[in-house]
């Protein structure tokens, strides 16, 4: 189970996330920065709910109604040429 990949873009497994939480007692945002989970190509759109749930379960960080891990624009990856065009 611990070998399950949570963030596919950055290849971060459950074990690494669990270890980081217990070592640093950190928030979802800090987990992201320390492990890069959620920082890859999809911008966390795939693994974010899982990450939030793991942090909530282990550290008791409450899931708020507002989004704990923010989504930054753009909505999906877009080429530099399109943005600058």
């Amino acid at each position, binding site marked *: 189970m611990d070998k399950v990949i949570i963030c596919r873009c950055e290849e971060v497994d459950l074990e690494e996330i669990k270890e980081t939480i217990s070592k640093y007692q950190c928030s979802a*945002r800090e987990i992201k*920065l*320390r492990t890069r989970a959620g920082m890859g*190509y999809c911008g966390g759109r795939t693994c974010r709910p899982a990450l939030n749930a793991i942090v909530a379960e282990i550290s008791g960080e409450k899931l708020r109604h507002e989004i704990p891990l923010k989504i*930054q624009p753009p909505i999906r*990856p877009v080429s*530099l*040429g399109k*943005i600058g065009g």
Partner: protein
Amino acid sequence: MTNKNHAEVAIIGGGIVGCAIAYYVSKAGIDCMLIEKGDLASGTSSRCDGNISIVDKDPGFDSLMSLASQELTAELEKDLNLPFEYRSLGSILVCDNDAEMEVAKQWVNIQNQAGLKFKLLDRTDIRQESPYFADDIPGGLECETDSLINPYLFCYSLIDKAKQYGLKLHTRAEVKLVSKKGDFLIETTKGNFTAKKIVNAAGVWSPFIGKMLDIEIPIKPRKGHIMVGGRQKPIIMRNVMEFGYLMNKFQRERIADSKTLKHGVALVLEPTESQNFLIGSSRQFVGFDARIDYDVVQTMARRALRFFPKLDDFNMIRTYTGFRPWTEDHLPIISEVEEVPGFYIAAGHEGDGISLATITGKLIEEMITEKETTISIEPLRYDRFNKNAVTM
């Protein structure tokens, strides 16, 4: 037994500046705590690039201070236990046109005379830096000692070591009130703390801390945007900026389109260790409005394409903004405040906080332990802003 809620020195703010201070002060054997309202590095220090650079600094005090900081950072690479993606490969500036190239030559000469390791680059050199560069770039220059770090990992690493030296860390504790009756009393959302000395390292928010003690701190937020490009193919090994925004230091006009000038846009392209790359930059005074301004992002993309036209099909995966703690003379305030003995300010590093964090930490440690300082602290004094008004 040390008291968890009292310390000789309390540092307010867990950005790169506060973390560097925490490291040097606790290493000196001083009982010290750090109070941060969110997580470590939850302010500007996780919303920026990671350049420790001299390439764009004025020769003189500015470049000397950066050089001192570069040397300290290289030492920390050995002393700290957690890696922070330190890459010491130098950095380059590229020119847009021949007029800039002429000024760049002068810049290299001045810097070399000051003993710094600068080198002029021609068309061929530029081509060798990256196959993605535009063919019409006339050249640029290199500073050999510049390096890159990951700023938030650096914060984590400094704190990890500082804790080994005895630092007491209080995160998610927002400072609400500060008063002084003998010791300082610091009231936070996580309870009260007391300290003999306080260091205000709250970056762009340091004026709010100052106000609690009736001290006015002339620091303003200067917003910057960053675009993150997803890893595809390696573009370049080291950081690139454009020479254009140094033109005004020479009282020469910068040639660029009106939006580029209006939003203070200048190319920065930083390769990160994750193999993504960061594209910047913009400079705006819009208060604390952190929203992405699409017009600015578009202008930045155009500017990037001017220098890297072949990146047009590279995907951008994220954009974000950060606030540089701006001061009028572009130097930070690293100083004790005469009006409130024991109250220190270490803030206002604008676009250089990553470069100058280590020297700032070292200077504060030296001021607190009353040692001779590594570099002169005269130009960094808090009262320099009032003084000018009176004596000039």
